[in-house]
């Protein structure tokens, strides 16, 4: 970030929620870098920005579509980069079409697309058909240009409500980074992702950054500002319901090919690109998990893996719970009664469980959902609740991975108090006890659990070093630790619990995540500090920092280059590329080697809701969608009925969003139990504009009620100049915002903002739409 010429901050408020990142942005500014802040509310990030532009919540694609159009219309894109490193030149088959908000292949009944309609033209031997001149009307570039020509400035701002001058200022400032020798970065957070179009919001960043040649260079990239210090790590290790560790697909009964390992590997493995090695990663994972029980004859234990029969994302899980389809749940450090969407319903859902195990630092609102202060009559709740005290991060050792993919080891600072224990110990003891309990079972359902290889030390004490080594993996025949994932095999002779991390522990006593050498190894990449997956690369896709011939696009933003004398790629980072593949060799310009054709995807025929991002209104919106007759993302799954009531603009005309403050963290269960932080933000508040306050007769500090179709919350009014009404299609639209940290436990308490939010998710990730919904406000008295 410190090397950037311009940071576009959108759907994020790093000055308040990721303050340390601002240290690097401050440095960038000292070197002449600019900061652009796009947010419905003038935030502390906006106060530090050179350019600020407001937009109505839920209109990011319109905003970004306009920037894409601006870049294309004004020839600001990096043409050589786009032609060489993206699929701009690829020809799209005749089946692809787009009309009135719908891509071809839509099935209205299923609310789903047939993605085969978006296929790319290939030669008989499976290679893409290209037009390097980018002139063919069926090439990705021309289709994209046509798609975004609809996003002219006036159409965009009529939807986003951004003043024209501000919008143009953003376009000019950021799109100028397409110039060779300049770089721009995009920083985003949950303001981008928590929408019914969250994934496509991020896709819009991808298209813009690829057009500007901003991927793979210092000060470039798309930075997900994580909501927690180890979100990257937890995602890498399959926190997401449809992943196995290392971004391998979780097998499903819905995919017939997944019935066997052979079928799974066949359908999941592309023929070209680095993912063609996938069978090695899958078999090594199975060997890590099932050890001796994983043999060639039993598909390396593939049948031990559960096969998903439905969608297990958060909303669906709670819907199943609400419908009485679940017996019990373990909740590790999670507090859905405050943090879940439509939180009142999630609290009700918990009461349908037979048992609940809450593992947390404090008794959270979730662990105590059955109590009187939660609005329940304890004698009416049949759920048996267990509360296991957990150790805090300073009370245990282990690694966390930041959003730069650095796996950093941390040591224990202090001992836990009382009976609190680290999560790992809780799981370890549970595994050992259950193994004992089921040891003599002949029930086939218990077989997978018994087959699980659990060698992390005997007794209650878990040896965390053995866990680390299992993640890295072994060359089983030699009994040695793996040096790199490049050596993994698909014949059962190697193991690795997560292939992308393989190589972080290349030999006994060499846990590289423990490295703390703060010497700059060049380009401020600090290669000997911790370990960055994969293979210790710091700037991912850094092949794209050099032109097709292997020469850096500019000296100022150089990372690696081809050294013809040494016959290899050299520079100040580990090449994200086979270091000996010459630019002239086959695949020598494939800068995006994970993708099957070695290029980045401007056109992505893989997503559920279309190959190009298209603007749709949120689930609840105060205006019709002027871009098409499709009001809501056509591929978003809508749950109807009591579990997800929908509000109408006639009753709830005000747009609302929620966010975090510096002092509280997530559902507040940690920070509202800390006095010094509670003192700083001790009250639930709602930020409203002076104009809306005047309309509603609300004065600063008044108590007000915010209502949505799902519930009501009481809070203090914070009347501020930092929210202004929007003019949308000539109509005045108000927006308000509030923190979502409060609940009824802790030193400071307050109503829970998520009582208001809906149970609807993104069409791809199913992340809930917390960030744009409708409400109304009134004085409390």
């Amino acid at each position, binding site marked *: 970030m410190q090397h950037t010429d311009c940071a576009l901050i959108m759907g994020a408020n790093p000055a308040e929620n990721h303050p340390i990142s601002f240290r690097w942005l401050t440095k960038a500014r000292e070197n002449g870098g600019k900061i652009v802040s796009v947010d419905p509310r003038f935030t502390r990030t906006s*106060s530090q920005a050179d350019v600020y532009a407001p937009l109505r919540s839920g209109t990011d694609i319109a905003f970004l579509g306009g920037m894409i159009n601006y870049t294309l219309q004004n020839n600001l894109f990096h043409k050589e980069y786009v032609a060489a490193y993206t699929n701009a030149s690829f020809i799209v088959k005749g089946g692809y079409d787009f009309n009135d908000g719908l891509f071809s292949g839509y099935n209205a009944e299923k609310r789903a697309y047939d993605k085969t309609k978006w296929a790319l033209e290939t030669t008989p031997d499976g290679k893409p058909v290209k037009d390097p001149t980018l002139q063919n009307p069926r090439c990705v570039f021309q289709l994209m240009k046509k798609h975004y020509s609809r996003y002219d400035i006036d159409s965009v701002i009529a939807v986003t409500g951004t003043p024209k001058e501000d919008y143009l200022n953003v376009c000019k400032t950021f799109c100028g980074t397409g110039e060779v020798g300049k770089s721009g970065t995009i920083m985003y957070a949950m303001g981008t992702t928590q929408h019914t179009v969250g994934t496509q919001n991020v896709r819009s960043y991808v298209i813009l950054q690829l057009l500007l040649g901003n991927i793979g260079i210092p000060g470039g990239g798309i930075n997900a500002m994580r909501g927690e210090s180890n979100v990257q790590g937890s995602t890498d290790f399959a926190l997401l319901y449809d992943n196995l560790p290392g971004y391998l697909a979780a097998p499903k009964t819905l995919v017939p090919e997944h019935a066997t390992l052979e079928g799974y590997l066949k359908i999941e493995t592309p023929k070209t690109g680095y993912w063609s090695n996938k069978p090695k990663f899958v078999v090594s994972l199975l060997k890590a998990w099932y050890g001796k029980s994983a043999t060639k004859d039993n598909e390396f234990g593939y049948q031990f893996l559960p096969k998903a029969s439905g969608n297990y994302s958060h909303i669906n899980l709670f819907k199943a719970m609400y419908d009485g389809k679940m017996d019990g749940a373990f909740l590790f450090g999670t507090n859905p009664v405050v943090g879940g969407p439509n939180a009142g319903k999630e609290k009700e859902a918990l009461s349908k469980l037979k048992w609940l195990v809450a593992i947390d630092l404090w008794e959270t609102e979730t662990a105590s959902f059955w109590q009187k202060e939660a609005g329940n009559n304890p004698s009416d709740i049949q759920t048996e609740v267990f509360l296991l005290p957990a150790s805090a991060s300073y009370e245990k050792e282990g690694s966390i991975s930041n959003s730069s993919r650095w796996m950093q080891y941390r040591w224990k600072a202090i001992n836990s108090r009382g009976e609190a224990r680290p999560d790992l110990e809780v799981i370890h003891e549970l595994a050992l006890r259950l193994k004992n309990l089921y040891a003599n079972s002949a029930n086939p359902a218990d077989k997978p659990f018994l087959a699980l290889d659990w060698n992390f030390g005997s007794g209650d004490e878990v040896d965390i070093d053995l866990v680390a080594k299992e993640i890295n993996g072994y060359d089983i025949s030699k009994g040695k630790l793996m040096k790199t994932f490049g050596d993994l095999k698909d014949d059962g002779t190697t193991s690795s619990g997560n292939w992308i991390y393989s190589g972080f522990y290349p030999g006994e006593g060499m846990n590289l995540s423990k490295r703390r050498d703060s010497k700059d190894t060049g380009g401020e990449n600090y290669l000997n500090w911790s370990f960055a997956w994969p293979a210790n690369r710091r700037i991912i896709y850094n092949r794209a920092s050099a032109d097709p011939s292997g020469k850096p696009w500019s000296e100022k933003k150089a990372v690696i280059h081809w050294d013809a004398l040494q016959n290899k790629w050299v520079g100040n980072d580990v090449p994200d590329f086979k270091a000996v593949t010459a630019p002239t060799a086959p695949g020598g310009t494939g800068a995006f080697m994970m993708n099957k054709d070695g290029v980045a995807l401007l056109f992505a025929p893989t997503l559920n809701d279309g190959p190009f991002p298209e603007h749709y209104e949120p689930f609840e919106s105060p205006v019709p969608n002027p871009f098409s007759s499709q009001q809501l993302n056509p591929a978003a799954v809508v749950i109807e009925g009591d579990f997800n009531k929908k509000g109408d603009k006639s009753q709830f005309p005000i747009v609302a969003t929620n966010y975090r403050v*510096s002092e509280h963290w997530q559902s507040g269960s940690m920070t509202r139990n800390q*006095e*010094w932080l509670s003192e700083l933000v001790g009250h639930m508040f709602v930020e409203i504009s002076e104009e809306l306050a005047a309309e509603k007769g609300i004065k600063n500090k008044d108590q007000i009620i915010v209502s949505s179709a799902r519930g009501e919350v009481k809070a203090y009014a*914070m009347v501020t100049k930092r929210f202004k009404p929007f003019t949308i299609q000539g109509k005045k639209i108000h927006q308000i915002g509030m923190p979502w940290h409060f609940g009824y436990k802790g030193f400071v308490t307050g109503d829970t903002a998520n009582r208001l939010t809906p149970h609807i998710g993104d069409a791809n990730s199913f992340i809930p739409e917390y960030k744009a919904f409708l409400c109304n406000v009134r004085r409390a008295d």
Partner: protein
Amino acid sequence: MTEYVKYVDVTKCDGCRACMVACKNWNDLPAEQTEFLGSVQSHKKTTADTWNVLQYIEHDNAKGNLEYLFRHSSCFHCTDAACEKVCPEHAISYTKYGTVVVDQDKCVGCGYCVNNCPFEIIALKEYKDKNGKEYRKAHKCTMCTDRLDEGLQPACVTTCHTGAMEFGNKTDMLKKAEQRVNEIKSRFPNANIYNPQGVGGTHTVYVLAERPSVYGLPENPKVPTSAVLWKDYAQPIGKMMLGATTMAVVGAYISNKIFNKEGKGHDEDGGGSHE
């Protein structure tokens, strides 16, 4: 001995309030029950238990654009400190670093310092002894003088991640401030260095984005004339005549009568420490 200065560049501050938490942590200060103030700000001003407060100000600038301004507000450690001048018990003194500190063992809680601080920083805390008798002591930022003794910097400075605060010798810091004001003039035409000479200069020096009054600071703070009279004339004579303890009692009466600065009442100035 070198004079030290805490340099605060408010234009680099992002309002994270880590300085407030670091201060409480190092100085072991308790949390206070805070009321909702209608903005993000947690306390109206510094108190005996909260030695620095982050101010948040929504300000429409001369061009009519909204500025969201932040300021780390804490003791200025004046070169001519009114609090030191008026203290009848010599409980307030200057250290070799230029910082101004209160010796709570000597403080009798008379509150003259509270009445006379031009920046409304120092405050009284109420205690009860084991017999239930109430007494008061003055408290304020010490500039972490105990840390300076150990070669460390003030806790707030150490924790500041944007580099909005630095601690160093006075000459360097003032030079830095001048450079910074030149750098930011185009963005903040009213940018200025706040190092008021009416109190002999201060050891917390600010680069402000706007005029001092926008931050609620006096444009030209002075040591009140009455305080000068008190310290340099009345007090020595009085002590000679009456003895120190009696003088403090009499002094409290006189102080309340004559030191109400610029029309403000005593209660308003001194009573806010523990509510």
